[in-house]
């Protein structure tokens, strides 16, 4: 049973404080939604947990099963069982999807997958997400549409099977069909094992497909309200205004 524990996390970007004391615990088997207006620091939280060099942690801890992730390099965090589906996946020229995925799976599992098995898993994963087989030979994210990038993030999620997945606005920019396909992928991942999900979103739409156990409202760099799924319905009806005003 894995647990991700974020304790009083403070993060700055270029000396500007963004996160101002975030506390959050995600246990395996739970899905937490973080909802908040644009600019409230949701991506900052995601990147800081993953260890992006632009984000400086100025205080607090992030523990995965008791291990302080902040002490680990980016790749060590991933190998420890953390996964970040990015809001804006990066295009990497010259690196093919299949090469990249094989390297990633090899690194995370600690041994190279058998070629035939890997090819089979990859094909099954791509089929399930309606990703054309030709994508395997394309350069990583290069020229992918927004929806293709997001599906590809979920493909990685399903192949890498992390303990804790942080999904940063995986729903944004998707049409309804793509949203359904991506949500099914997240739900397959949730059903496949004891994993925790931190689902960051601006809109309630995805929560109709991926049901959260807990909802946290994020504003001005901290969690300002918490509740169950019903909190999402309230946000749907009332928007974020009450929170942005209160924190301004």
């Amino acid at each position, binding site marked *: 049973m894995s647990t991700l524990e974020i304790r009083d996390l403070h993060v700055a970007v270029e000396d500007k404080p963004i996160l101002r004391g975030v506390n959050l615990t995600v246990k395996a088997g739970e899905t937490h939604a973080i909802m908040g207006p644009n600019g409230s620091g949701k991506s900052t939280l995601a990147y800081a947990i993953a*260890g992006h060099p632009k984000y400086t942690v100025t205080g607090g801890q992030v523990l995965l099963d008791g291990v302080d992730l902040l002490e680990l390099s*980016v790749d060590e965090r991933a190998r420890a069982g953390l996964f970040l589906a990015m809001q804006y996946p990066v295009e*990497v*020229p*010259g690196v093919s999807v299949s090469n*990249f995925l094989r390297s990633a799976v090899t690194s995370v599992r600690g041994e190279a997958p058998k070629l035939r098995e890997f090819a089979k898993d990859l094909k099954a994963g791509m089929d399930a997400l309606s990703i054309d087989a030709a994508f395997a030979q394309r350069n990583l994210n290069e020229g992918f549409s927004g929806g293709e990038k997001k599906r590809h993030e979920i493909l990685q999620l399903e192949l890498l099977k992390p303990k804790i997945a942080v999904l940063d606005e995986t729903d944004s920019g998707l049409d309804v069909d793509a949203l359904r396909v991506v949500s099914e992928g997240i739900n397959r991942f949730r059903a496949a094992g004891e994993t925790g999900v931190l689902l960051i979103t601006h809109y309630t739409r995805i929560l109709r497909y991926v049901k959260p156990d807990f909802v946290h409202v994020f504003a001005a760099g901290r969690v300002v309200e918490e509740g169950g799924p019903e909190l999402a319905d309230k946000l749907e009806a009332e928007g974020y205004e009450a929170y942005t005003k209160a924190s301004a």
Partner: protein
Amino acid sequence: MGLATTPSSTLQRKSSYELDDFAVPTGREEEWRFTPLSRLKGLHDGTAAGSGAVSVAVDAAPEATVETVGREDERIGKAYVPADRVSAQAYAAFEKATVVTVPREAVASKPTVITFTGGGGTAYGHTVVRLEPMAEAVVVLDHRGSAVYADNVEFVVGDGATLKVVSLQDWADDAVHVSHHHAQLGKDATFRGFVVTLGGDVVRLSPSVSYTAPGGDADLTGLYFVDAGQHLEHRLLVDHSQPNCKSNVVYKGALQGDDAHAVWIGDVIIRVEAEGTDTYELNRNLLLTDGARADSVPNLEILTGEVAGAGHASASGRLDDEHIFYLQARGIPFDEARRLVIRGFFGQLIEKIEVEELRDRVMAKVEAELAG
């Protein structure tokens, strides 16, 4: 329209077989300003006496003939006239030339490999590769060992012939190599030149292309990896003087370490008579560490209004942190992430090498450079 009729880049450029027609360069000349003359061991000022220390071995395709000839052989200097001081020095000083001929309509069944092995000391050389009309061949120039070496190489590609050349500069750390490679393309001739420069203290290689009739197609690819203290310079000149010819130049290099210096000059001239020319040139440099420097100067001179296509691009930059972060965020360790991105940078270039064993050797060399 105000188009000039004589290309300015060749106005100053003279060609001559006579050494005395070229002054000893001072380093202030446009064509020498990037080159560390003090490290040329006298190749440029007449103080380096040849001792014949570079041995030339040829493993030829059975369809090709290989001759070692004296200076008087009439096939020498037909396609190329020396265009700078060191080239003229090499022309004045070489004693024996290697002439490889692939006869009319012959299709070489295997690559012809010419191995130049430096055994220390100074040497001058001359090589002629002649493809008669409709012939097809792959030629490898493999430079290794230690030497101070200046030479000229002429590729004469006959009408309808196809010549693919791989020139590998895999010298020992202290080698100095100044070389001209000139390809002269006949009607509908095809030339594919692939340059890989890895070793040597100073390498200055000047590949050039000229066309004697319409329909020629030249593709010049280069890959270099510059380590600390190395100076690797490539100076390309494609002179479009005939209608409806093509050229495509792609050079990519990676640099790492203090005072690693790459120079790339890409001159393409499209003369008034060269209507329907289609040309593109690209140079990219990847600076892997501080203290490395890349000078990249593309220069496209268009003297006709009737081109089919003409473009150039040049960019030098660092490894992108975002690329590395993305790969690391998927568990891939930093060193491997870096290798993947650098391999991606060289991309399909290495795969374009015609000879499989050579492709593997170059790949292994690049991997070794990345590891070290």
